[in-house]
């Protein structure tokens, strides 16, 4: 019964792609479980689209093998693979109307009576009244749904989505994210979704592979990636992280706390939130998410509970964004630390220039290898935003 467990998995083994001397994708192994919503996340040029195109058969891998279930499809041309793609630009056929576009795949496989299926599919994407329209008469969001319907009607083993929401405006994008998620749950087909939008990846996917420079940096469930980034790239690319350079004082052992010093103060982090190699290195990067940090005015420092990590500093900037206020704090431990405070009880003293103490539960602290670029993945977030 092994084919039931791995029946529809997409397995890439040692897949790589080189163009001349440029390596777009370094040899990677990846398994996408059947029925999952899988996201390939990364900045442009990280190899995510190339990986997707290799699964579709539109790009020949330089090395490696692609399996759909137990079937090796590496050498199959795209039109023989049970895989369909939703293209970034939708690539709807401009000379055919919507229902002809949707029926294209069925007709190519020699299915004559397509009307019922086309109608069902139009219903699924809520475009029943647009069957006789040409693609250019539809809005971007509608074209996008046609592209999804055109791919889904074939009941592919895997649906590949190449930044399908990139051309839509923010509000429509959010709406389509929910829509796609709904459709995926409804049809139960494996979705592989390529995106540069970390929020999109986290809201939609069960599993996210963060790619950088042609490699998979980290793979996991969205919450796991967010809480336990293993590289500075993942820490910075998925949301925002405060990374502080620190010296190890006590390496601890097992799950015992690691104690480090940064900017003259001591910080603790759970032993199981940094690898052995990292804590033995002498130096490490202490990471904490901005929303995990609380802010207290220096005058109230005495009332902070014992056992919390503390960093003193001065507010250099604050911006009110409704649900929260975002502060930028300079401290001896690190410059421009980010703090997000919920707007529950606002302390009027927390203005730029104020002396403050940042404090947080040590359990929310993670440790990263100090040998990495501390700013990896930072700019790309701003580009994408």
């Amino acid at each position, binding site marked *: 019964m092994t084919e039931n467990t791995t029946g529809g998995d997409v397995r890439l083994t040692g897949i790589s792609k080189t163009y001349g001397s440029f390596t777009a994708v370094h040899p990677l192994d990846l398994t996408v479980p059947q029925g999952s919503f899988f996201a390939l996340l990364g900045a442009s040029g990280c190899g995510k689209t190339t990986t997707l195109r290799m699964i579709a058969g*539109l790009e020949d891998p330089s090395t490696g093998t692609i399996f759909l279930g137990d079937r090796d499809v590496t050498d199959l*041309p*795209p039109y023989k693979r049970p895989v369909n793609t939703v*293209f970034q*630009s939708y690539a709807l056929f401009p*000379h055919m109307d919507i229902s002809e576009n949707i029926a294209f795949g069925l007709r190519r496989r020699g299915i004559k009576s397509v009307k019922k299926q086309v109608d069902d599919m139009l219903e699924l994407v809520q475009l029943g009244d647009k069957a006789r329209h040409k693609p250019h008469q539809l809005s971007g969001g509608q074209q996008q749904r046609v592209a999804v319907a055109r791919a889904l009607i074939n009941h592919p083993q895997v649906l590949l989505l190449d930044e399908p929401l990139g051309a839509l405006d923010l509000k429509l994008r959010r709406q389509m994210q929910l829509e796609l998620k709904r459709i995926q749950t409804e049809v139960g087909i494996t979705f592989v979704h390529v995106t540069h939008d970390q929020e999109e990846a986290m809201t939609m996917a069960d599993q996210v592979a963060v790619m950088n420079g042609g490699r998979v940096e980290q793979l996991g469930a969205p919450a796991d990636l967010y809480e336990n980034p293993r590289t500075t790239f993942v820490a910075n690319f998925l949301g925002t992280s405060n990374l502080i350079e620190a010296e190890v004082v006590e390496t601890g052992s097992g799950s015992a706390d690691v104690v480090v010093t940064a900017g003259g103060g001591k910080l603790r982090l759970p032993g199981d939130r940094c690898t052995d190699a990292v804590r033995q290195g002498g130096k490490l990067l202490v990471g904490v998410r901005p929303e995990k940090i609380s802010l207290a005015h220096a005058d109230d420092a005495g009332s902070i509970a014992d056992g919390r990590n503390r960093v003193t500093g001065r507010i250099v900037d604050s911006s009110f964004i409704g649900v929260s206020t975002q502060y930028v704090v300079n401290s001896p431990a690190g410059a421009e630390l980010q703090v997000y405070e919920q707007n529950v009880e606002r302390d009027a003293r927390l203005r730029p220039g104020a002396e403050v103490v940042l404090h947080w539960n040590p359990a929310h602290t993670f440790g990263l290898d100090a040998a990495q670029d501390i700013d990896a993945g930072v700019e790309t977030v701003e580009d994408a935003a």
Partner: protein
Amino acid sequence: MSTTLTKEAPGPVEEPILRKPPTRKRLVPYWLLLPGILWLLVFFALPLVYQASTSVQTGSLEEGFQVTWHFQTYVDAFTEYWPQLLRSLLYAGTATLLCLLLGYPLAYLIAFKAGRWRNLLLVLVIAPFFTSFLIRTLAWKTILADDSLVVDALNALHLLDVTSWLGWTEGERVLATPMAVVCGLTYNFLPFMILPLYTSLERIDGRLHEAAQDLYASPATTFRKVTFPLSMPGVVSGTLLTFIPASGDYVNAELLGSTDTKMIGNVIQSQFLRVLDYPTAAALSFILMAIVLLMVTVYIRKAGTEDLV
């Protein structure tokens, strides 16, 4: 195909009520149209009217021509010269088909496969225009001459036996046969086929090919269902740009043909310049124009394209 709204567009778009622009601004488009309209009037409309009047005149060069509404000229001209008319359409049609068969693969290659050679290939397509039309056609006289390399090769392969049997060539000769005229026409009008085809093909989004292949269409089916339909505007304008001038051409038949391959263009030319029977020449011109217009209308209706190129 362009992205302009077609007839299926949902409902009429309601025009917002606009303030009338000042008179001077409203006249600008007409001023811009003026040179073109004048040109058209002087060099197209007036000659057309003049020709139309000539075609219903009677008389001779010595006594002068008078408009006598003598429509019999049309009937006489058609009765006498219908073989040449038919031959013109046949030769032009064959040449157009050959141009399409030769030009499409080349245009496809330039549009999709040529890469950095694209511009060079395009220049090569246009390069023959740097030499005079007459010289190039005369060159074909040498190419197709008896015992030339080409004719010898065709003989050796016994291909001329086949074409002779079909009536395209005579014995071991190619020059002064229908095939020579069609070859000349094909050669001379090929660039007019390739260029519109290229523009049409080049505009096709390559991702549509990928999408078709992703949706189970083999390369051949992709061509049949996506590439070719999308290149129809180029096919239509290319065939028109080839067929219309080719059907009125007389140079190829004059230089490469014989008395048995005279096209209607040759008849018109000799009626005008040698026989000096202006009414017959004018009537033949109008008959040709009417036939071509009729064929083109039917063709465009059939091809179903609204926008050319």
